[in-house]
């Protein structure tokens, strides 16, 4: 296949072999872990900061404003300046807060999203860990984040924070179902939970094209439920500025607040990249069955560009949703999940099982 011309596996293997030939196996293993950790840390910080900037710009344009445009050309270093400001600020600890939990909570939230990023295939051969239960793993670790939010709300010893955290708990417990079931649609189609095989299975066409109506339905359900799971507007009840000041992170200041903020954006990135990988083919170029010339032309665009392009598209979709719709009330939120998304999903799964059984999809 043409897309294999940009395979990055030889590069990563040569780094691996270089480390193992110069160091003892324990040290080589440790060096590799450190290297991957540092790369992900930098990636995390850069993506997080630039997503904040992108959100501010998108929001501004949708409201007929300009957005940040003073710090750097077109405001490109605005969020870096914001980060420095937050780093210099005082870390206030509340007198009657539970000190240990209060300090631990931001780290739980940020580690949860950090763990999820590790299993994402960025390009062919650029994949930190390729679990055979990749989708299940991402779902499991990303829902650990809610524990951090609950701890943050509880340990702040503040009623607003506690209400925000409780709402967040109710929200994530219910929307986790929709996220899982909508991913299950594609798992039934492809017959695998491993992300690398899932991407390979879309070499002839993406699942959203091959899987037609149920896959499109599942994609939109996933984007909706994913938006809810990352606590973003219109489902940002956990923060709800106008009702709860800032919800679970009311009492946090300085860099701990920045951790919550960054984790929110990285969760959005995680949801968008899962949506891109599972429904839109991940790093796989756009292939249409039967059009050889077109497919070969598409193969010349490197997979990493495809991956980031698709992720950016889903992120833009989520921002568009956030800056269009007003916030839901808690009962409306639970109605939407239990009365609409979940029944639609369950029917969808039965339909998909039938379709796969009869072979009514593009193979």
């Amino acid at each position, binding site marked *: 296949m043409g897309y294999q011309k940009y395979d990055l596996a030889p590069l990563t293997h040569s780094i691996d072999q270089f480390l193992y030939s110069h160091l003892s196996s324990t040290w080589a293993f440790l060096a590799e872990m450190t290297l991957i950790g540092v790369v992900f840390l930098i990636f995390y910080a850069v993506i997080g900061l630039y997503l904040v900037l992108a959100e501010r710009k*998108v929001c501004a*344009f*949708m*409201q*007929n*404003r*300009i957005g940040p*445009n003073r710090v750097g050309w077109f405001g490109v270093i605005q969020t870096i300046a914001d980060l420095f400001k937050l780093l210099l600020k005082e870390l206030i600890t509340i007198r009657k807060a539970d000190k240990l939990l209060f300090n631990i909570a931001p780290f739980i939230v940020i580690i949860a999203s950090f763990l999820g990023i590790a299993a994402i295939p960025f390009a062919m051969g650029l994949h930190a860990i390729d679990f055979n239960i990749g989708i299940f793993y991402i779902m499991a670790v990303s829902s650990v984040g809610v524990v951090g939010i609950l701890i943050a709300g509880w340990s702040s010893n503040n009623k607003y924070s506690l209400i925000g955290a409780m709402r967040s708990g109710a929200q994530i417990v219910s929307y986790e179902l929709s996220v899982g079931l909508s991913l299950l649609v594609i798992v039934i189609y492809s017959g695998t939970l491993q992300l690398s095989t899932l991407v390979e299975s879309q070499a002839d066409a993406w699942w959203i094209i091959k899987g037609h109506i149920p896959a499109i339905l599942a994609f939109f359900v996933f984007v909706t439920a994913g938006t809810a799971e990352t606590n973003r507007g219109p489902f940002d009840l956990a923060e709800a500025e106008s009702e709860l000041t800032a919800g679970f992170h009311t009492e946090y200041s300085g860099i701990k607040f920045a951790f919550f903020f960054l984790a929110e954006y990285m969760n959005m990135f995680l949801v968008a990249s899962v949506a891109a990988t599972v429904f839109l083919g991940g790093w796989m170029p756009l292939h249409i069955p039967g059009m050889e010339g077109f497919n070969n032309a598409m193969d010349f665009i490197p997979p990493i560009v495809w991956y980031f392009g698709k992720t950016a598209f889903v992120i833009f979709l989520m921002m*568009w*949703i956030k*800056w*269009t*719709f007003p916030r839901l009330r808690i009962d409306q939120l639970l109605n939407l999940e239990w009365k*609409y998304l979940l029944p*639609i999903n369950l029917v969808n799964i039965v339909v998909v099982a039938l379709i796969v059984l009869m072979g009514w999809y593009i193979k």
Partner: protein
Amino acid sequence: MKSIFDYIAGIFKGVWSLLKGMTITGKYFIRLDKIVTQKYPENRKKLKMYDRFKGELIMPHDANNFHKCNGCGICEMNCPNGSIEVISDKIITSEGKSKRIIGTHIYHLSMCTFCGLCVKSCPSNALAFSQEFEHAVFDRNKLTKVLNNPGSSLVKDLAE
């Protein structure tokens, strides 16, 4: 059965209205020429404020240095925070009658809240708001202003 149809129709109606909202924001997103934000210090030269904008209090004078203030002091009485001081003067007209005219109309910009009661209550429409809003000065004494120009007089006096 009807409830099932209502449920499904409700989903489609809901999705349709959501899409309608997203079209509006989507249109705004691509119409960058409709941006309302003004880049202030750069556009200072061609910046135009709005007619009803309350910059600072002025007393309009015409080309022959005439104003409409007769020194009645109603603006001073109506000012809630005492930022206007009217010092009136007396002159003897040609018919031998004594007449009150304005001596100095003092306006303390530092105390003004721009409520506009002075402009509204003035019986002879002598006061107005200018569009000037860059009030910052290095000495606060500069914020105390005399509104009537030196040597100016009331419009009606011209006939006499």
